[in-house]
């Protein structure tokens, strides 16, 4: 039994080694893709990074909030700060026109009395809190946040760019808002309650926790925006792994067409054994591919002046996720090879479906910049499971516990493809 499996692994490895076209699809294509895509995207990021994003700032508030935001933008390397348009002090109307004309990429308008409004709402909160002797209940009262800050965006700006800029802006503004709120809050409390060691402190910290969640929780996903290398290396590595479906399904089709299948099906060895031989070889190849892509990200991209790939903390988690991805990709290839009737059909079916799944999965354009609807569809692509898993590891320094769900989903996908392949195979054999 073992010797049969070894023999079929050996056969499969030899077949693949001699398939020059297949090998170049598996190893050269993804490397080229990583280089090209990363260079293109990095160049786009750089032009913005060098001069900074042209921002026009309209400060109608002229109080803490407006001033602090202005100060923050001024000292941010990513922004090129302006508060005047053609020599005139910017107003909301002028700013809107200037952004629409493309003079600035982003405009920020802080309304009049914004700081005052925040202070007022905090004062109200404090009064309510103090009216109510039960301090714990006070945490249920939300800080009303009626200040409306307008962010203007150049309509021709790239969606991906806008998303990252606006989410950063939102976050930054919220941060300052919160700061002012708590400043006011603690001042008020200090005024009213002389003994600071008492209960109000706990109310303060509880309120802070709640507020903090309100500000950041919903943006948690968007907060992490990979650079070109962190995105492209795992994305194209996963793409390449799934592209294995083409040589793999081709090899299955060839076996059918070259008549070997007659002998294979009349031999005293199960067909499953042969399929297992294939799976072992192709899973190993997938993992090899991934290793190669990581090498590119770690050593070759930095040579071109690109950022170095950061791997995160858990090599074991990377290994586990890579293996699960490899199984999912291999299962997909077996399924395509079984469903197709000709080699040609398998190639077309394989490449088109993988292009589609990769586009949906966020390989070409990261799914966090996709519109909501697409992001929901994206969640059905196994490439997306793999990619979001690698984001967790590479960008957030996650470990096995963070990706175990993605690993399970990928393995489940593998089993589903094998079951489909089994039924398709049985059906096709009944003549």
């Amino acid at each position, binding site marked *: 039994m073992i010797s049969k499996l070894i023999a*079929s692994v050996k056969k499969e490895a030899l077949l693949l080694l001699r398939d020059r076209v297949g090998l170049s699809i598996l190893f050269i294509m993804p490397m080229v893709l990583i280089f090209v895509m990363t260079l293109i995207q990095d160049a786009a990021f750089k032009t913005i990074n060098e001069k900074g994003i042209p921002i026009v700032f309209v400060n109608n508030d002229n109080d803490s909030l407006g001033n602090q935001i202005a100060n923050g933008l001024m000292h941010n390397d990513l922004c090129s700060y302006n508060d005047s348009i053609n020599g005139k002090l910017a107003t909301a109307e002028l700013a809107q026109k200037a952004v629409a004309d493309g003079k600035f990429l982003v405009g920020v308008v802080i309304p009049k009395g914004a700081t005052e409004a925040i202070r007022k709402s905090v004062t109200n909160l404090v009064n309510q809190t103090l009216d109510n002797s039960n301090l714990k209940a006070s945490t249920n009262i939300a800080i009303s946040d009626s200040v409306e800050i307008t962010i203007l965006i150049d309509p021709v700006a790239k969606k991906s760019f806008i998303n990252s800029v606006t989410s950063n802006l939102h976050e930054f503004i919220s941060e300052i808002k919160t700061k002012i709120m708590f400043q006011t809050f603690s001042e008020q409390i200090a005024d009213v309650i002389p003994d600071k060691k008492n209960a109000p402190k706990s109310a303060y910290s509880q309120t802070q926790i709640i507020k903090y969640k309100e500000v950041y929780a919903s943006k948690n996903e968007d907060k992490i925006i990979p650079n070109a290398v962190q995105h492209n290396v795992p994305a194209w590595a996963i793409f390449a792994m799934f592209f294995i479906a083409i040589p793999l399904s081709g090899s299955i089709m060839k076996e059918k067409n070259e*008549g070997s299948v*007659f*002998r*294979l099906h*009349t031999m*005293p060895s199960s067909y499953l054994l042969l399929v297992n031989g294939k799976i072992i070889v192709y899973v190993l190849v997938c993992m090899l591919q991934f290793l190669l892509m990581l090498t590119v990200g770690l050593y070759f991209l930095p040579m071109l002046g690109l950022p170095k790939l950061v791997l995160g903390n858990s090599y074991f988690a990377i290994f586990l996720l890579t293996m699960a991805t490899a199984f999912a990709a291999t299962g997909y290839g077996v399924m395509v090879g079984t469903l197709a009737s000709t080699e040609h059909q398998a190639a077309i079916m394989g490449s088109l479906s993988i292009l589609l799944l990769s586009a949906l999965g966020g390989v070409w354009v990261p799914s966090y910049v996709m519109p909501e609807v697409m992001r929901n569809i994206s969640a059905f692509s196994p490439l997306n499971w793999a990619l979001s898993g690698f984001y967790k590891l590479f960008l957030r320094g996650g470990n096995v516990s963070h990706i175990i769900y993605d690993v399970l989903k990928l393995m489940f996908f593998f089993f589903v493809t094998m079951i489909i392949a089994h039924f398709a195979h049985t059906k096709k054999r009944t003549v």
Partner: protein
Amino acid sequence: MNSTAIIEIQNLSKTFKGATEPAVNNISFSINKNEIFGLLGPNGAGKTTTISILCGLFPPSSGQVFIDGKSLETQLQSIKQIVGIVPQDIALYPTLTARENLSFFGHMYGLKGKDLKNKIEIWLEKLGLSESANRLVATYSGGMKRRVNLIAGVLHSPKILFLDEPTVGVDVQSRNVIIEHLKEINTEGTTIIYTSHHMEEAENFCTKVCIIDNGKIITQGTPEELISKNESTTNLEHVFLQLTNTKLRD
């Protein structure tokens, strides 16, 4: 059941999915141990279909088959162990060498190690392929491929050997080598079932023949019996043409 019969076929029929006419239509015959049995017929007669059923590639629509006393339906796995197959289409990996192909198929038949290596070398030598056995099969001539295809079916010394047109499309030299070694295998105890539409070859090679057309048996017996049945026929080809008429087949 005949006591010396190693293969017993009863009322075998096969109608392919979507086909209106059966490819094999209610045929019955038995094959004795150590026989060289020729299943003869024009193209499309149903020879490959019959062989495929006997090898367990797909089940018949109806009828029963017993091979070495075992039912094909219920004991296929143990039948597979004692059967060798040389398919009509070359069943080899073109991008593997002859040795690699034979090693793989040998393993699949449960051979391994030194024993397998020796058997491969002996057969390559016998069929004049030792020199070229490290070349990719894709670079082989038709005759060479046929010979490797044959070896892949006999490496494990099967009790019963099915050959589907083993000499089709090969030169006289290859043909003679193949036939000669099949005879040798037969004298060592292997029962051979062979299909062909080459009547002269069958007449010399087979101990018994069965002529089928349109999935039906037309006649069966020893070549001598069939030839002497009718005064006007002097060889098997005459018999064949008389029985299957001269209409073109596809």
